[in-house]
């Protein structure tokens, strides 16, 4: 059988002069040879928002999300893809997110018309994000410099790590059933001559405990209990690395490989305790360890921040939010130094961006060329 030639490859060579009522005129510029597309960054970060209104519990939600996003971007010393998944928020939040997306703070904005539940959103995030590492965070988390580097260091230092949170996790999400410490101890004794991997019990500094308790608005009883708690810390002396043997669904990182194995996760409701344990439980069931940093490199902000005595929040409120000017690593920037071609192109882009007149002129030239190249030939 004769194989019909690939039409798209022939299209450009055709004599188009006889066309009378064709639906595709010209060649899609995106198909032109050499037009670059985007390559995903090594790390993709996803944040989940759900603010049905700006009343009551959610009264300060917009500010919380703003500080969350600003701190996240400011904390990054490397380019990362940032996805915000909105689970059906109110128009004010949608407008705000779209504004942040337009300003380049958010790379991918996923807008769901209805609430799919936290695990429903995570199913999409874990399935779709193309990056080697996927970081997740609730949208009420404050990020500090170094959280990403330290999390990645834990991934590099502990062979079977599957999930890493960037704050020491005091609360036992798996209600005494976590296997990580036990497995690390067993792994360490089996392989100790080589790795020296061991478990230590560590009493955390009181201020770290207080910060954690402030974040969850812990009762006096729970606060006292946590002050007595000793953290189980895994130590890998060969790498000089330490990590707490627990993690939280509030903020964590996974490798894409592990994330893909966790889906689809069951969805019991929009935000249930049952759903919350699916990730650490799933990671451990796959045979991986759940770990967190010893130092609090992220902090839960909660829903009430304006009265919080947190330097980072005060700084953001006074500087970034008032002026609306955010200058931080990780934000979209113009191309850096390059050859004369790159620099000329960047300069032209800036000129076009800034000058509506020039833009109009270019549009006219572009339209004229299009007409000349394609319309004339119809």
């Amino acid at each position, binding site marked *: 059988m004769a194989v019909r030639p690939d039409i798209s490859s022939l299209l450009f060579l055709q004599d188009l002069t006889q066309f009378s009522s064709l639906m595709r005129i010209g*060649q899609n510029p995106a198909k032109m040879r050499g037009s670059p597309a*985007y390559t995903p960054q090594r790390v993709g970060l996803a944040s989940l928002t759900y603010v049905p209104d700006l009343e009551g519990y959610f009264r300060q939600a917009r500010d919380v999300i703003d500080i969350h996003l600003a701190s996240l971007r400011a904390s990054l010393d490397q380019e990362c893809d940032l996805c915000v998944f909105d689970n059906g928020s109110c128009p004010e939040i949608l407008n705000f997110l779209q504004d942040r997306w337009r300003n380049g703070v958010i790379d991918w904005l996923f807008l769901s018309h209805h609430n799919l539940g936290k695990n429903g959103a995570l199913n*999409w995030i874990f399935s779709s994000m193309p990056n080697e590492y996927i970081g997740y965070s609730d949208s009420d988390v404050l990020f500090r410099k170094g959280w990403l580097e330290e999390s990645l260091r834990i991934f590099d230092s502990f062979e079977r790590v599957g999930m890493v949170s960037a704050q020491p996790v005091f609360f036992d999400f798996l209600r005494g059933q976590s296997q990580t410490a036990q497995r690390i101890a067993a792994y360490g004794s089996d392989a100790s001559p080589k790795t020296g991997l061991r478990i230590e019990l560590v009493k955390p500094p009181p201020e770290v405990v207080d910060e954690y308790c402030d974040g969850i608005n812990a009762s006096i009883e729970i606060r006292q209990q946590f002050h007595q708690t000793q953290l189980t810390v895994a130590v890998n002396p060969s790498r000089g690395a330490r990590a707490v043997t627990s993690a939280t669904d509030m903020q964590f990182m996974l490798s894409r490989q592990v994330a893909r194995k966790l889906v689809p996760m069951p969805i019991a409701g929009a935000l249930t305790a049952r759903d919350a344990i699916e990730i650490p439980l799933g990671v451990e069931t796959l045979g991986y360890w759940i770990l967190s940093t010893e130092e609090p490199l992220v902090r839960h902000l909660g829903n009430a921040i304006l009265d919080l005595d947190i330097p980072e929040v005060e700084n953001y409120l006074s500087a970034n939010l008032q002026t609306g000017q955010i200058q931080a690593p990780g934000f979209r920037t113009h191309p850096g130094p390059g050859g004369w071609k790159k620099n000329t192109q960047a300069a032209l882009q800036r000129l076009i961006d800034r000058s509506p007149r020039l833009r109009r002129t270019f549009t006219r030239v572009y339209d004229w060329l299009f007409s000349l190249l394609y319309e004339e030939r119809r």
Partner: protein
Amino acid sequence: MRVGQNPAKSIEHVPEPARVTVALLTYIPFLSGYYAESLEVLKTCLGSLWENTPQPYDLMVFDNASCSEVHTYLQQAQEQGQMQYLVLSDKNIGKGGAWNLIFQGAPGEIIAYADSDVYFYSGWLEKSMEILEAFPHVGMVSSRPLRTPQVYYTSTLEWAQKEPEATLEKGQFQSWEVFKEHNDSLGVSEETARQWFQESHDWRVEYHDCTAYIGAAHFQFVAPKSVLQAMAPFKMDRPMGQVRSLDQKLNEAGYLRLTTSEPLVKHLGNRLGESHLGESAPSTTDNIPQQGGNRGAPLRSRRGAIRRLFNLPPVRRSLLWLYDQIFRLYYSSRT
């Protein structure tokens, strides 16, 4: 700190996703030149989908860094509840990149994918699903007969030849009008299309009282999500032009690539054309701007010596280079 309890914790039931996720990919960086009518095309595409898809489905639109006019339109559609999921990318991550996100993340068991320049006719989903469910090991079903390169459907042909319960026929089954319609949409001249029509043929296969043609196309298809997920990831280092890898992978994995025997979708291209001006769905008629002046009409008055000059290969190549440079300047700030 956390004050009170998050009211979301009291939401016990979240909606189950529909079995079918209809996924559209949009990329309209600006509204001039090649893309001058693309927004109208998109509106027509969505209007026909809403009008002619009575089955339950969730609609996901992935926008690959379009211009603000397109975003505004898409956001309005979502606010009105006509679109369950809208994904906005601030960079063009390529068709392959978008496919990676759509195919991996779409919540439905079945994904009905289409480029944003497709017109849907009544029955498109129903007939495509019939084929998907009647034939075994189906990789993708396009909703109109198409003659595609055999290299991408050798597995389907082999299955049809070996399967005792399948009846395979070779011949000119689709009409010239149906063939021409699709080739028109691709910008192929009538003369060339006629030549292709005469030189090629269709493969028709009947299996368990269900008839399909062999061959499918990546601009529109219905497929099981599990199959598409197994084909991912797709290479994504160019915005377009690498989509054949899906056809190739499906064929190599032994999946059937089929089409409906009737034209139930139509590729619109980047211009609606006169025949489609009255074809836009009623629900979107109000939104579709009237065609302006002579846009889309042949500019016969300019023919002559100047045109011949511009058609000289070196001149044309230079003009194309300039055209491409302006496009890059426009859209590179979004990539």
